C-alpha cells in the first residue's frame, strides 16, 4: 500500500493548520511515489500541480472545509482507481467550464489553469491506454427488442403486419442513461427466454408455409349501380344527397355502403378472410360544383374495422373517372366498406324552433312539471314541428353542389408478394419438387445458420439442429413443421440472441466479420447485409477508405432510420414529450395531432442534420427547422402545406432555431398548466451537455402551486426556493438553463406575458428570461442565452460523443475512456461537426475495433 492514503488523514486534528500542510505534503509524496511507479502522467509537473491545488482549491476542498463533500488534498492520485479518476475528471471539467473556482474567488492564472487541465488529460490518456487491458471492454450483449425485430426481418425477408411484429410480443428493454443499448441492462430472465421461444415459434410459423395459400388472392368488385337492386340498400337511392343511375351513383351527401356485397367467396359473409395486405380501390370522378374546391373522398371500414382507409381529393372529371387505390393491412374483424363525401352540401338545416321546444321539455322534465311537457308537446304538433331538420332551400337545385360519381368499390387480396414467400425460400432454397429428406434439411441449415449466427458455423452445430428435426420427423411431424422447429431452435439459441464475440482476458482485434456486425447493429440496429458481409469475407474492412464508403452507403440506406428511432429518439427523449397532457381549457390551440407533430419535428430535424451532413451544433441553434403545415401554423410560419415535414428557413430573430426552439421539448418540461424551469434546465444539461445534475435529495418537494390571490410567477417561486442555502448550491447550476426558456409556455408557444395557472387578463406579468450561467456570464433573454450555448461547442461535442459512444459500444463511457471521447470530439470539430464525422471516428477507434 502506498503511504499517506486518504484513510490516514482522518487522524489529523482539523484545527491545526500545521497538520493540514503536512497532510497535503504527504499526499504529494504519494503523488511522486505513484508517478515514479508509472501509473500516470508526467511526474516532473508535480510541483506545478501542487501549487495550483494549494493556491486555488484547498481553501474550500481541504481538511478544514469540504464543500460539496469534495476534498482534493487527500485525493488519491491513483488514476486507475475509478472513484479518484472520476474526481480528477470533475476537477478538469469544472476548470474547463470556468465554474471553479467560484466567481467570488480570485481567478487562477490562465496559463496555470491550462497547464493543470492538460496535466489531468494527459494522465487520463495514459491510464486509458493501460486500462484497455482490463476494464473498458465491450461486454457480451443480447439484442434489444428493436434489434431482434429488425434482424428477423432481414434474416428471413419477413414483413410483419401490424400487431404481428416481435416488437409487440417482446417486453420493453431496460435503459441506462436513456438508451436501450447497454449490455449490463439487457438481462435475460426465465420469462424473457420463454418469450423468445414463443416469438421464435410465431416467426417460424409465419416464415415457413405448407402447400398453397389458405386463401388465394381474389379480386372482388361491387358496382354501385347495383345499389338499387339490393333490398337492404335500396333506401339509399331515396336519400336527398344520393342519386342512383344506370351506370353509377352520384353522392352529394352521406355515404354509400357495400352491405350485401364484397364477401370473400366460400366464407360465411366475411369480407376479409384472413389478416393480410389488401388493395382497396374506388373508381370515381367528381364535379366540384360552384365551390371551386376539389371534392374530397373518404373510404372507410367501420364497426370494429380499421376506420378511414383512404382520404383523397378526387380530381378526375365525370367524363373520365379514375381508380383511386390504397394498399394496406386489413383484419378479419370489421364491417362493410363505405365511401363518403367530405364537406358535403347541407340537404337539411337545423330547425331552431324545434330545438327550443325540445329544450323546454327537457327543463320541465328536470323539475317534473309534466303538465308543461304536455302543453309543449301539443304546441309542437299544432305547429307541425316534427323533426329537428328541414329541407335546405339552397340545395333544391343540385347543379351547383359538389358531387362524387362512384363507379365501383374493389377489394383485392390477400396480396402475396410471392408464394411461397421469400422467408420460406430463405430455408427451402431448392424450390418445389425437392426431395424432403434429412440431407435437404442439413443443406438448408448449413446455408442458413451462418447468417443467423453472424459467423461461420461448424458441422457439429448444424448436426444438433438436424438431430432435432430428425426427432420431430420420427415423431410423425410433417416436414415443413419439423423445419419450423429447427428454425425456432436457431432463433432461441444464445448464438442468435447475443451479439457473441469470443474473447478471453486479453484484448484482441475484431475479425472483419465481427466488425461488420458491430457496424451494422450500430447504424441499422440489424444484421449486416450481403454487400457488407462480402467485404468482410474479402478482408477489406481493415481499410479505412472502404469503411468510410460503407458508412456512407449504410447511412443512405432506409435501414438507417433505425439510427433516428434508436439514437435520435432516445438522445432527445422524444418519447417523453407527450407524457403530460396540457390543460385543455388553458391551451385550446393544443390537440393530439399537434402533439404528434412535435415529436415528429424533433425526429425529422435529427434525420435532416444526420443525412444532409450538417453540423450537429445546429441543435444549439440553427437558421432553419423542419415543420409541416399544422406545426408551421402553430409557429406562425407561413407557406407550408401538407402533413409531410420539410425544411424551412427561419427569418432572422425567430426563436424556432435549434433543439430548444422545438415545442415538444418545452412541453416535456411543463406539467400541463405551468412551465417547469428546473426540469427544462435538467434536460438542457443532460441532452446537450451530458451533465445531468444529481437528483434532488428526498423530501425537497416541488415548487408550491400558485395559490390564488398571490399570483407569483414560476420564476418568483423558484427564487424563493433558492433562498434556502442548501438548495441554492445545486440550483445555481440548473436554473439558468431553464429560466432562459420561460418565453415558451406549456405547449411551447412563444409568450411575452405570463400565462397558464391563474394568470388572466391584461395585467399579467411580463416574462423575464434573463439569468446568470454557472460560469458567471449573464444573458438578457433567450437569444443571448443561445449565444452562450454556442460558446460551449466543445462541451456539446464531448457530450454528444459520450452519448453516441454508449449507443455504439453498449456501455457508458468511463473516466478511462476520456481520451477516446476527446479524440471523437476533436474529430467532430475537425470535420464540420457532422454526425457522420463522429460515427467515422467511433468506428475507427480502438474501443470499437477490439474485443
Amino acid at each position, binding site marked *: 500500500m502506498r503511504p499517506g492514503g486518504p484513510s490516514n488523514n482522518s487522524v489529523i486534528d482539523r484545527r491545526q493548520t500545521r497538520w493540514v500542510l503536512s497532510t497535503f505534503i504527504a499526499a504529494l509524496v504519494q503523488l511522486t511515489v505513484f508517478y515514479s511507479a508509472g501509473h500516470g502522467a508526467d511526474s516532473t509537473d508535480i510541483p506545478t500541480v501542487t501549487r495550483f491545488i494549494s493556491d486555488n482549491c484547498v481553501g474550500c476542498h481541504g481538511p478544514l472545509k469540504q464543500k460539496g463533500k469534495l476534498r482534493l488534498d487527500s485525493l488519491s492520485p491513483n488514476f486507475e482507481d475509478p472513484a479518484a479518476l472520476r474526481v480528477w475528471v470533475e476537477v478538469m471539467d469544472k476548470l474547463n467550464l470556468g465554474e471553479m473556482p467560484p466567481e467570488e474567488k480570485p481567478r487562477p492564472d490562465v496559463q496555470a489553469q491550462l497547464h493543470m487541465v492538460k496535466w489531468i488529460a494527459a494522465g487520463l490518456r495514459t491510464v486509458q491506454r493501460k486500462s484497455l487491458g482490463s476494464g473498458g471492454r465491450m461486454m*457480451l450483449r443480447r439484442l434489444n427488442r428493436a434489434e431482434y425485430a429488425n434482424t428477423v426481418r432481414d434474416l428471413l425477408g419477413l414483413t410483419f403486419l401490424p400487431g404481428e411484429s416481435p416488437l409487440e410480443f417482446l417486453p420493453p428493454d431496460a435503459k441506462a442513461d436513456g438508451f436501450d443499448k447497454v449490455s449490463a441492462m439487457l438481462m435475460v*430472465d426465465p420469462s424473457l427466454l420463454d418469450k423468445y421461444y414463443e416469438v421464435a415459434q410465431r416467426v417460424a410459423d409465419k416464415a415457413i408455409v405448407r402447400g398453397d395459400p389458405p386463401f388465394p388472392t381474389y379480386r372482388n368488385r361491387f358496382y354501385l349501380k347495383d345499389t338499387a337492386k339490393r333490398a337492404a340498400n335500396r333506401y339509399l337511392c331515396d336519400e336527398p344527397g344520393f342519386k342512383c343511375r344506370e351506370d353509377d351513383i352520384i353522392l352529394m351527401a352521406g355515404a354509400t355502403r357495400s352491405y350485401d356485397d364484397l364477401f370473400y367467396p366460400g366464407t360465411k359473409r366475411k369480407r376479409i378472410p384472413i389478416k393480410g395486405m389488401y388493395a382497396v380501390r374506388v373508381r370515381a370522378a367528381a364535379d366540384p360544383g360552384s365551390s371551386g374546391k376539389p371534392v374530397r373522398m373518404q373510404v372507410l371500414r367501420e364497426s370494429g374495422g380499421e376506420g378511414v382507409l383512404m382520404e383523397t381529393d378526387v380530381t378526375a372529371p365525370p367524363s373520365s373517372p379514375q381508380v383511386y387505390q390504397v394498399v394496406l393491412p386489413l383484419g378479419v374483424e370489421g364491417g362493410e366498406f363505405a365511401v363518403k363525401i367530405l364537406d358535403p352540401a347541407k340537404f337539411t338545416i337545423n330547425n331552431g324552433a324545434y330545438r327550443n321546444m325540445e329544450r323546454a321539455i327537457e327543463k320541465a322534465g328536470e323539475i317534473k312539471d309534466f303538465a308543461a311537457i304536455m302543453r309543449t308537446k301539443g304546441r309542437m304538433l299544432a305547429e307541425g314541428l316534427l323533426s329537428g331538420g328541414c329541407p335546405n332551400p339552397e340545395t333544391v337545385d343540385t347543379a351547383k353542389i359538389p358531387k362524387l360519381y362512384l363507379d365501383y368499390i374493389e377489394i383485392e387480396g390477400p396480396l402475396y408478394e410471392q408464394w411461397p414467400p421469400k422467408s420460406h425460400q430463405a430455408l427451402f432454397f431448392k424450390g418445389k419438387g425437392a426431395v424432403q429428406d434429412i440431407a435437404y434439411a442439413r443443406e438448408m441449415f448449413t446455408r442458413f445458420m451462418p447468417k443467423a449466427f453472424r459467423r461461420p458455423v461448424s458441422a457439429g452445430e448444424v448436426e444438433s439442429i438436424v438431430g432435432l428435426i430428425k426427432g420431430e420427423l420420427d415423431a410423425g411431424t410433417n416436414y415443413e413443421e419439423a423445419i419450423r422447429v429447427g428454425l425456432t431452435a436457431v432463433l432461441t439459441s444464445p448464438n442468435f440472441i447475443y451479439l457473441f464475440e469470443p474473447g478471453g482476458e486479453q484484448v484482441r482485434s475484431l475479425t472483419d466479420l465481427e466488425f461488420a456486425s458491430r457496424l451494422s447493429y450500430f447504424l441499422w440496429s440489424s444484421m449486416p447485409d450481403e454487400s457488407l458481409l462480402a467485404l468482410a469475407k474479402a478482408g477489406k474492412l481493415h481499410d479505412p477508405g472502404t469503411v468510410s464508403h460503407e458508412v456512407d452507403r449504410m447511412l443512405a440506406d432506409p435501414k438507417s432510420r433505425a439510427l433516428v428511432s434508436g439514437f435520435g429518439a432516445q438522445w432527445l427523449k422524444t418519447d417523453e414529450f407527450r407524457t403530460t397532457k396540457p390543460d385543455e381549457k388553458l391551451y385550446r390551440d393544443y390537440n393530439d395531432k399537434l402533439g404528434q407533430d412535435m415529436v415528429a419535428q424533433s425526429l425529422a430535424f435529427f434525420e435532416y442534420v444526420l443525412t444532409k451532413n450538417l453540423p450537429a451544433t445546429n441543435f444549439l441553434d440553427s437558421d432553419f427547422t423542419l415543420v409541416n403545415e399544422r406545426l408551421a401554423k402553430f409557429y406562425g410560419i407561413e407557406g407550408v402545406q401538407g402533413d409531410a415535414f420539410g425544411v424551412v428557413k427561419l427569418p432572422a430573430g425567430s426563436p424556432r432555431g435549434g433543439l430548444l426552439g422545438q415545442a415538444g421539448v418545452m412541453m416535456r418540461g411543463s406539467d400541463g398548466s405551468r412551465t417547469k424551469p428546473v426540469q427544462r434546465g435538467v434536460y438542457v444539461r443532460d441532452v446537450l451537455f451530458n451533465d445531468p445534475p444529481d437528483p434532488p435529495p*428526498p423530501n425537497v418537494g416541488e415548487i408550491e402551486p400558485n395559490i390564488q390571490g398571490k399570483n407569483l410567477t414560476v420564476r418568483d417561486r423558484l427564487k424563493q426556493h433558492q433562498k434556502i442555502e442548501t438548495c441554492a448550491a445545486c440550483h445555481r447550476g440548473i436554473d439558468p438553463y431553464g429560466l432562459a426558456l420561460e418565453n415558451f409556455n406549456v405547449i411551447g408557444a412563444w409568450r411575452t406575458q405570463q400565462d397558464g395557472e391563474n394568470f388572466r387578463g391584461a395585467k399579467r406579468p411580463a416574462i423575464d428570461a434573463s439569468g446568470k450561467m454557472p460560469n458567471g456570464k449573464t444573458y438578457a433573454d433567450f437569444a443571448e442565452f443561445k449565444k452562450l450555448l454556442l460558446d460551449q461547442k466543445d462541451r456539446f461535442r464531448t457530450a454528444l460523443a459520450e452519448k453516441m459512444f454508449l449507443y455504439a459500444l453498449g456501455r457508458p463511457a468511463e473516466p478511462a475512456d476520456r481520451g477516446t471521447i476527446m479524440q471523437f470530439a476533436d474529430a467532430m470539430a475537425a470535420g464540420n461537426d457532422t454526425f457522420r464525422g463522429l460515427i467515422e471516428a467511433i468506428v475507427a477507434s480502438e474501443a470499437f475495433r477490439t474485443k
Partner: protein
Amino acid sequence: MSSTRPVLSRRAMLRGAGALMALPYLESMMTSSALAAPQAAAPARMAMFYFGTGMNMRQFTPSDEGKNFTLTRILKPLEPHRGNFTVLSGTYLEKGGGHDGAYPFSTSISKDRKQSISPDQLAAESLGADTRYASLQMSVKAGTDFGSQALATIAWNRQGVPLAAENDPHVLYNRLFKPDDEQEKAQRSTEFRRRHSVLDLVREDAKNLEGKVGASDRQRLDQYFNSVRELEKQLERRVAWSSKAKPNPDTPHRDDYGKSMTPEGAPGFFYDTYAKLMYDLIVLAFQTDSTRVCSYVVRTELAGGVYPEFGVSKGYHALTHHGNDPQNLEELAKVDTIYMSHWAYFLNRLKSIQEGNQTLLDRTVLGFSSGMGIGHSKDLLPTVISGGSGLGIDHQGHLKLPTNTPLASVWHTMLDRVGAAVPAEFQDSKGPIKQLIRA
C-alpha cells in the same frame, strides 16, 4: 418458527382424485380428513402488495395506539375487519424515498445495485412445491419495466432478476382455471416434447459459448443458463400437472374474466371492476390451492394511479407533490380511501371462505406498504399487515414501532409465520416484529 405444513402434501392428496379437483380446497379435503386428522390445517399463504408513490399519511396514520385505536379517514373502510389487521407506524426504507422505492421495497437493495431474492420468492421456495404455480406475479402494469422508476413487479429471483408480472385478469384467469380443450391436450404433448428438445439444444449452445469467453461475459451467459434451467423446472411442473384437470372455481365474475381488460387499453375501463377482479383472482387462486404465494403491484411508483371515475383533478404523482395545497391533500386522501375500500373488499372475500373452523383470511398473511411515505420520504410508510390469525399473528390494531424500523422486518414477520426458511441475515431486518407474534 411455526409449523403449518399440512401432514399430507397437496400433490399426494390429488393423486387419482381428479373429480375432487373441481371443489374448493378445504371443502373437499376436510370432509375426508376431518375425522382422522384434526391437526391437518389448510396450508399457509402469503402475499405482498405495493402501493406506489406513498399515501397521504396525514390522514392515514392514527393518532392513538392499541387494539381500539381510532380509525383515520383513509383507514375507515377497514372498520369491519378490526382484529384482522395491524397498522404499523415507524417503518422505513433506507434505500427508498424519492421515486426509486419500488426497487428496495422487497429487497432493501437500492435501484443502482444488483438485486436479490424477494420475500415472496423465498416463501415460494418453501410453499410452492405442491401447487400448480409456485407463485403469481400480478400488477397493474404488465412485464417488469426494469430500469424505469415505475417498476411493474416486486418479485425478484435468486439471481436478482425481476420476474414479469401480468396485469390482465383474463390472462390470469385462463392460466389458473381455463380447462384445456381436446385440441390443446393433443398439442400439449407435442409442445412438451419440442420445448424439452429445444431447451436441451440451447443449453448445449450456451455451454459451448461459455468456454470461449472471459469472466465478465460468462456472468452474462449465466443469466441465460439459469433461465434455461428455470424453464426446464417449469416444464417439469407443467408436465406433472398436465394430467390433472384445473380447478373450476365458483365465481360470479366468470363473464368478466372472459375478455381482456387492462388499464392501458380498452375504452370503458372501470377501475372498480378491475380491482375486484384482480383481488378475486388471488382469493380464487388461494382457495383452489393453485398457488400459495402472490405479489401484486396495485399502483406503480410515479406513473398512473388515478382513473376518471375517481373524480380527481390530477395524476396521483402530481397530487403527491401537494405543496400543502388543501385541494391536493384532499384529493390524495380521497384516492387513498378508494384503494382502502378495495382492500376491505379483498379482506371480506378472504374472510367469507371457510377452511375447516378457520377462514381463508386466517390462513393468509398479507402485507402492504409503499416505496415512500408522504412528500417522497423514506419513512412514514403506509404499512399494514392483514390476516394470518390462524398462522399465529396477534393483531395489535395500531402499533407504533421504534422510529426507522426497517420495512424488511414486516416481511420477516410474514415469512416466519408461513414457515418459510429465512436466512440468518435477512436484509436489514433485526428479526420479526415480536408484538405481532402470538406467544
